[in-house]
């Protein structure tokens, strides 16, 4: 009887642990308060702010597959670009410019692409997977370049005209409407991501990342789970791409480029992989530094970001948030006698 009691107590403790893990903390309000405060403090930087929020959604989508499922990709821009082109072409060729449905259409197309490519690619590992993701994104870029009639090719897709949000709010010149729009979309995406990573499904992804052989052994349908999260991630990246197309009313091949796949990876790593809020901090730091430093000298910026990467990889594996955690732990330990 004692054994059963013991087991029950232990499973109760485990349940309490997971509930505590998932419950909201006060500190989690911080980024949202900061985002709202930024609107009033830096009203002149709302265009940049909107691009940062879009980058946060994109980085969050990458965090789902990289940070939780451990899928390393050098071609995540494929889905961002697919979303951007889908949204843009819906408006430019079919004349549909309702922003929310057009953005969701971008997410849908990117999600479909993610499902198909994920189904094929996620059977591979290591360097082969890296090369396949990289080549797939470039393949899509070259295809968009060749399909000039549809995508505008090298010159970019023009003629995108987006209707006012809810039929009321125009996309103003200062990007104020779109800042709120992007913030709202980010909040919904974040709720989804947070729910996913704390769900049994999300925990099984972490299991796959940590020890794939054991997950096979306990009967987890590994490939199916990976394809599922890859599809969700691709759809979220597509939504970010759709927002990007709507806010700029212009799409170029650049949305599919290796530089964009690399940049989002760097943003996430600098912020902190596998910890939702890393996807918030990274793009803010990256894009503000880029905006400021590239004005001074592009070489300076490029050297700086290279050095930052090397330092993060060698000394701060958890990115900036990881470093902050380590610092907090050290302070706590220091205070104790």
């Amino acid at each position, binding site marked *: 009887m004692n054994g059963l009691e013991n087991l029950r107590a232990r499973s109760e403790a485990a349940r309490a642990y997971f509930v505590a893990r998932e419950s909201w903390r006060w500190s989690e309000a911080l980024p949202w308060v900061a985002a709202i405060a930024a609107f009033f403090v830096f009203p002149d930087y709302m265009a940049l702010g909107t691009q940062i929020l879009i980058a946060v959604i994109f980085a969050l989508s990458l965090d789902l597959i*990289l940070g939780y499922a451990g899928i*390393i990709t*050098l071609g995540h821009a494929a889905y961002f670009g697919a979303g951007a082109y889908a949204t843009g072409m819906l408006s430019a060729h079919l004349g549909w410019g309702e922003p929310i449905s057009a953005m969701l259409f971008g997410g849908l197309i990117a999600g479909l692409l993610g499902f198909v490519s994920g189904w*094929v690619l996620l059977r*591979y590992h*290591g*360097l*082969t997977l*890296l*090369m*396949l993701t*990289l*080549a*797939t994104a*470039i*393949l899509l870029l*070259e*295809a968009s*370049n*060749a399909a*000039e009639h549809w995508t505008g090719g090298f010159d970019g897709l023009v003629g995108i005209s987006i209707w006012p949000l809810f039929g009321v709010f125009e996309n103003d010149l200062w990007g104020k409407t779109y800042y709120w729009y992007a913030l709202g979309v980010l909040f919904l995406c974040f709720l989804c991501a947070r729910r996913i990573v704390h769900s049994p499904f999300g925990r099984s992804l972490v299991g796959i990342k940590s020890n794939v052989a054991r997950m096979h052994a306990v009967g987890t349908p590994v490939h199916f789970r990976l394809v599922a999260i890859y599809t969700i991630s691709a759809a979220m990246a597509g939504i970010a791409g759709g927002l990007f197309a709507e806010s700029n009313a212009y799409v170029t091949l650049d949305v599919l480029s*290796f530089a964009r796949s*690399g940049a989002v*990876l*760097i943003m996430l*790593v600098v912020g902190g*992989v596998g910890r939702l809020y890393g996807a918030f901090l990274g793009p803010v730091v990256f894009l503000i530094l880029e905006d400021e430093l590239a004005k001074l000298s*592009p*070489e*300076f*910026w*490029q*050297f700086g*970001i*290279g*050095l*930052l*990467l*090397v330092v*993060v*990889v*060698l000394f701060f*594996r958890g990115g900036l948030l990881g470093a902050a955690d380590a610092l907090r732990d050290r302070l706590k330990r220091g205070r104790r006698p």
Partner: protein
Amino acid sequence: MQQALAATISILFDGVAYAMLLFIISVGLSITMGLMGFANLAHGAFAMMGGYALVSLMLTLSVPFLPALALAAVIVAIISIPFERFLYRKLYKSGELDQVLLSIGLVFMTTAAITYLYGPSTVSVPVPDFLTGQIDLGFSTFPTYRIFTIVVGFAMMIALWFGFERTIVGAKIRAAVDNRRMAQSIGIDVDKLFVLAFALGSGMAALGGGLAIEIIGMSPNFALTYLVFFLIVVAVGGLGSIRGAFVAALILGIIDTAGKYLWPDGGAFFIYALTVAILLVKPEGLFGKA
């Protein structure tokens, strides 16, 4: 008919010259990746260093072309040693993500440093008279410099084959590629092999970078622009396989050149489609070990 034949010969010739360039630069990457299992995206940066070392040697120190080419390779090989000792070595046991990020960081830093030192535009070097002009091979004439590149490429292939198959160091490297732990336990100093292979690979990349100036051009973006091509040669050929790198470079070089001549808008598409197709069927590459 005559014209089509001439065009075919010209495409094949340019393709092979380009392929040899890709081979010289990438083969070192193939060996180091096969040996150390390091996803190194910074290999092109060493090729770029070689190109710019050649520029400095020739223009500032007025060293003649051929000695400068050899010297540039040696200099870059020596420069690469501390990179392996102090940076790469720390990450041999880490995952691919850390390796990719570290090497991308190094590419950015090299690119920025070279832009700062040499400016952002394309550079050139004075090629000696005996390498300029055309050579008549009976059925057609060919640019001497490209013939020189092809000869160097084949010479490297033969030298590497001899080095790997017929020398004791080569046998040790092959042993370490096949099974590092076993090689270590029979007393092979794998650490020393790593340094040697890394320096050798970087030196060859530098040689390729020097040769590339006259064929595909050299600018601070070289490492990033051709990064994908070097990786394709390695992945399609198979990690650690010299023969694989040679064949993959030939396929890539000839198809890419043909694509640029025949279908300028969509030629590159074909390369990537082929790469994906080959890797889907043979994930370990054409000549890689399963």
